[in-house]
């Protein structure tokens, strides 16, 4: 069985979109998994044709199997290798791309095989332009992983490979205490920017979030730098890309690298004290004013 597309998986099960894209190309789909065996089992039952599971020592992080992952893919070289956007998947895909000498694209909106060329519509430069790229030779794509694939049928066979890990091991894991979130599952999202002056003031946002059943997200500096929330809550070019019914941006200036993360939102509301803020060129409804007055007023108006 000659594999047409390989999916590269670390320790996350959210690979439904990768399987769907690989399937859409036609031909056999393989998956190589560098995480726990349970992840390999989820992938195997998710609609692929074969799975290679890299069995590494328990204290090895997925990245320690990078060479073994590249070996597995290179043994049955594909047209396309796909991975999700998580840090460990990026490392594994990098090893695969180096081994295959593949073209690497990270903004694919669509991919198709035309004869011996692979055509990718690829968003570039903060999604301000879409390039159609024709590639002759192997392609490595970084994509949104999607959700956990539902079990489809009896499941593919799992081939186990014993890995001699690269020289790295996990010596400690600490939790940061922030509640994790799946922003993609939220119908309504409130984004918090640096217009919110102090962490205590998030109480205002939380009250509004409760009133409209929204998840709270943020711009990058609020999660990185201010550390008011976990990094899984920041929206933007290198953070979450979401498409909720409603996105309400509070105290967010509206820079490109944030707004590309919400272009799919059905309705966008912006609240900012600066009438010239870029946010107002991206909103359906704009409110120029003091968020400390407007946010509680909106919460009250909902009651």
């Amino acid at each position, binding site marked *: 069985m000659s594999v047409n597309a390989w999916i590269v998986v670390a320790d996350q099960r959210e690979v439904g979109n990768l399987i769907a894209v690989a399937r859409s190309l036609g031909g056999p789909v393989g998956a190589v998994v560098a995480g726990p065996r349970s992840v390999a089992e989820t992938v195997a039952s998710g609609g692929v044709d074969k799975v290679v599971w890299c069995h590494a020592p328990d204290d090895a992080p997925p990245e320690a199997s990078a060479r073994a992952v590249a070996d597995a893919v290179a043994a049955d070289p594909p047209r396309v290798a796909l991975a999700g956007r998580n840090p460990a998947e*990026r490392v594994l895909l990098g090893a695969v791309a180096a081994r295959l000498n593949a073209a690497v694209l990270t903004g694919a909106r669509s991919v198709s095989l035309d004869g011996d060329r692979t055509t990718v519509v690829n968003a570039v430069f903060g999604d301000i332009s879409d390039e159609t790229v024709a590639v002759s030779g192997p392609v490595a794509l970084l994509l949104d992983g999607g959700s956990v694939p539902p079990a489809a049928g009896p499941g593919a066979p799992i081939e186990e490979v014993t890995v001699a890990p690269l020289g790295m091991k996990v010596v400690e894991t600490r939790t940061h205490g922030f509640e994790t979130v799946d922003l993609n599952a939220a119908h309504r999202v409130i984004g918090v920017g640096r217009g919110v002056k102090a962490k205590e003031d998030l109480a205002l946002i939380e009250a509004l979030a409760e009133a409209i059943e929204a998840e709270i997200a943020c711009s990058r500096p609020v999660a990185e730098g201010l550390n008011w929330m976990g990094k899984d809550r920041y929206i933007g070019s290198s953070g979450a890309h979401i498409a909720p019914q409603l996105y309400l941006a509070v105290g967010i200036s509206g820079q490109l690298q944030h707004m590309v993360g919400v272009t799919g939102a059905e309705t966008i509301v912006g609240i900012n004290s600066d009438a010239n803020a870029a946010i107002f060129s991206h909103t359906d409804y704009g409110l120029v004013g003091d968020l400390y007055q407007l946010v509680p007023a909106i919460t009250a108006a909902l009651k």
Partner: protein
Amino acid sequence: MRIVVAYKWTCDPEEATARPDGTVDWSRAKPGLSTYDPVAMELARRLAEEAGAELVGVTVGAKGVGAPIASKAALGRGLDRVVIVEDESLREAGRSELAAVVAEVIRHIGDVDLVITGDSSVDVAAKMVPTVLAGELGWPAVAEVTSVTGQAGALRVERAIPGGVQVLQISGPAVLAASADAAAPRVPGMKELLAAARKPVELLDLTALKVPPAGAVMTVTGRARPERKARKGQLIDTTDPAAAAAELVAALRAAGAL
């Protein structure tokens, strides 16, 4: 110990616009150190000071990356020297090709124990050059790195994972991509900039590096400005916050957003 910081001298798409035909107009943009690279430089500089290591900057790219203003900006942030490949053929290079060139530069420098990069480049933001580079070198890579301490052969690396932090011990050479908040970069002062002007700058000829040819050839066959959902762009009068709130809530209910 020898540490390399791989950095990029480029423009911010925030200052670019897409023309109706999808081509990108960079004419208003001014090149600079890519946004997150000063973080990598600061992280690397602290480690180099602690470990008594040499700190070498590496950048590869099209015309401009070897300009004195570019190397001075990098050297002013505490690098001991820079090694640069400036070649116009790299303007349209893909991630794999850039990584292959950086790998050859690292082999040219020799005895490199660690490569540190920023989180992502401000222009392409693929986050893939460090990981392909690691693949080229046969080294392990770790992304989202928040802290690095120790010595070559015994590095203690912390990286962000969903819900927390993981501490890794790395026993050989490695490529580390710093998280955007791994260190607070200092703005170089006059003293650092004057010192930067006296530090060594090595320009390498791309053809002399013997970079293997790319295995995949990319051809751009079309460009388009992406369709954006049309926004209403309605401003709600906020003179009376309560009235503004009521108007917004009514509008959102009518739109089915609440």
